[in-house]
């Protein structure tokens, strides 16, 4: 197999005979005059608008009332048993009478048996209505937000950035990342978008200001 490595690299080098030997990759100029963010007014309002546009349910709440909002959301959906990352703050669930299963003890079949999952996030991108999970604090491993049919995500206002270019420097490529923009969806039937295939079919977002 290592023979192929040398063969491919050899072919690639031969194919690039027109590239001057002294040229470094950075000598190929990349114009970076695109905008780092598109000015579209208030960031949180924009995030709300974009999330709703892709059929997510969104709430804005002051820090002191987030537990109440979480409780109302879970109750409204009839969630009896919810999964949460081991390190998710207790006070998120202070107001709800839902059974909270800590994810450490749940295998995929166990996750399939809960009514939903509550997590935090690593960042949120207003322009595209995207929430990024990096398996860090209050997020748990990737399967946690994938298997249950309902995902409630708590986003802190200071985690919200305007556009994709502001999000990338905040994220560590070494961690497994999941970028979520609305509930799972497909355009495979007549190129018309419908929500809900394999991932959570409902995404609910609580923005804590």
């Amino acid at each position, binding site marked *: *197999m*290592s023979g*192929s*490595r040398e*063969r*491919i*690299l050899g*072919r*690639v*080098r*031969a*194919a*690039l005979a027109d*590239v001057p030997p002294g040229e470094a*990759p*950075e000598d*190929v100029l*990349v*114009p970076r*005059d*695109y*905008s780092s963010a*598109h000015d579209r007014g208030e960031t949180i309002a924009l995030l709300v608008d974009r999330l709703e546009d892709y059929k997510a349910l969104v709430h804005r709440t002051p820090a002191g009332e987030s537990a109440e909002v979480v409780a109302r959301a879970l109750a409204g959906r009839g969630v009896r048993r919810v999964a949460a990352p081991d390190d998710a703050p207790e006070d998120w669930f202070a107001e709800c009478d839902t059974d909270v299963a800590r994810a450490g003890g749940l295998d*995929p*079949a166990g996750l*399939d048996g809960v009514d939903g999952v509550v997590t935090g996030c690593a960042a949120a*991108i207003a*322009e*595209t209505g995207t929430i990024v999970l990096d398996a860090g604090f209050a997020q748990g*491993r*990737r*399967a946690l937000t*994938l298997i249950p049919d309902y995902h409630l995500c708590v986003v802190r206002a200071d985690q919200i950035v305007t556009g*994709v270019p502001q999000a*990338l*420097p905040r994220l560590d*490529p070494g*961690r*497994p*990342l*999941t*970028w*979520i*923009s*609305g*509930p*799972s*969806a*497909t*355009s*495979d*039937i*007549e*190129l018309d*978008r*419908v929500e*809900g*295939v*394999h*991932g959570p079919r409902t995404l609910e977002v609580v923005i804590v200001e």
Partner: protein
Amino acid sequence: MPSFPEAAKSATGDSQLRHNLRKATHTIRAKRDGAVGELDDWSQLRAAGAAIKDRTLRHLDTYLERLEDAVTAAGGRVHWAADAAEANDIVTGLVRATGESDVVKVKSMATQEIELNEALAQAGITAYETDLAELIVQLSDDLPSHILVPAIHRNRAEIREIFRDQMAAWGVPAPERLSDDPRALAEAARVHLRERFMRTKVAVSGANFAVADSGTMVVLESEGNGRMCLTLPQTLISVVGIEKIVPSWSDLEVFLQLLPRSSTGERMNPYTSTWTGVTPGDGPQEFHLVLLDNGRSDVLADTVGRQALRCIRCSACLNICPVYERTGGHAYGSVYPGPIGAILTPQLQGTASEPEASLPYASSLCGACYEVCPVAIDIPEVLVHLREEVAGGSGHTAEKAAMGAAGWVFGGERRLGAAQRAASAARSLVPRRMPGPASAWTDTRDIPDIPEESFRSWWRREGAAEEAPEPGRAPGDGDEQEGGRR
């Protein structure tokens, strides 16, 4: 495989296909226009995307080694496959080593290109496609006809039939009284595949991007089937073309804006997964990256055709193409249909045989593909370049003779004048419907009447003699408006 014109003949006559394609392509065009129109810096993003890809391609050897180092350092294993056979052998060997006989797959063009599913089947391994459209194609024993939406040629009623008739043979059957509502069809796919996701230990994927600096793989998807495959199995094997590299993590800021808006017409696709090697306790604990050449280094060697390797497989060129809209993807006889396929396939496979040799001509050169391409691949330029290659080869003798004759006539104004006079003299003899090759025109269109006299002949007779009303007038001073009204 038939040539493109032969395949197109039956496709253009299929009214159901024409209707399905028209509806789907017009829907997605409108969505793409909206999503792209939101960004006032689209042309700058496009220029940056093209330049980043050019940087990568011009120094691909450097980036390949960098990527290999980074993936290895993160706990992944890198394999190099010079061609399809070698890639299939590598993947088959890796699956066998796990002792499993089933794999779940994330939609991937590279694995279609190398016909991995067929190779795995030969080895007694069943590959289950999990993307909804790929599932439709697999269940109906069909071929994909679009890069992004492989079942674009099917409408909801046809999909319902396929689910009802075929799902049971592959696993969980379709629910009774399945309707053709897309929501119900998506639900049926969810139920059909869920149990498969829960128990399959090996997954095969491609990647939209591979970041050289960090060794990160990036997969954009919508349904969550990708997340299932990339997260739940023990072993993950990603087959990735060597041109999929981007130099650094921050370069994704360009492509994560260009790709979703160009492909599904969304600001962002529902799910994007990135992973770097393996993460203890989260996701597959064994990761293999198979770097695939399979003709790409040949494309790289062609300084005009090289730009085709910038392609990020968004399929905007298919969706806008008036030819694709009327033939669908199957007519291209290739995994890569549409305008990008018309330049990529002949470059990857050569133009020695049909249908590859007919593909560069499968375009009216209208330029719409170039206009929408998010990485500015000048597809018409490459098409013409490939036509030169085909025309320069053997065959096409009648055409060469005709082009030679036309070249001779145009080689001198006297020859052209004589030809025009001969045509005018015979004008009453030209039939409405012509035999032989000319019938390709007159089967559907009238030919114009040949005029009594060419422009050239009129000019000689009286055009040159006539004088402008005010020959002394000063030109272009902005007062022509008035002059024009006189």
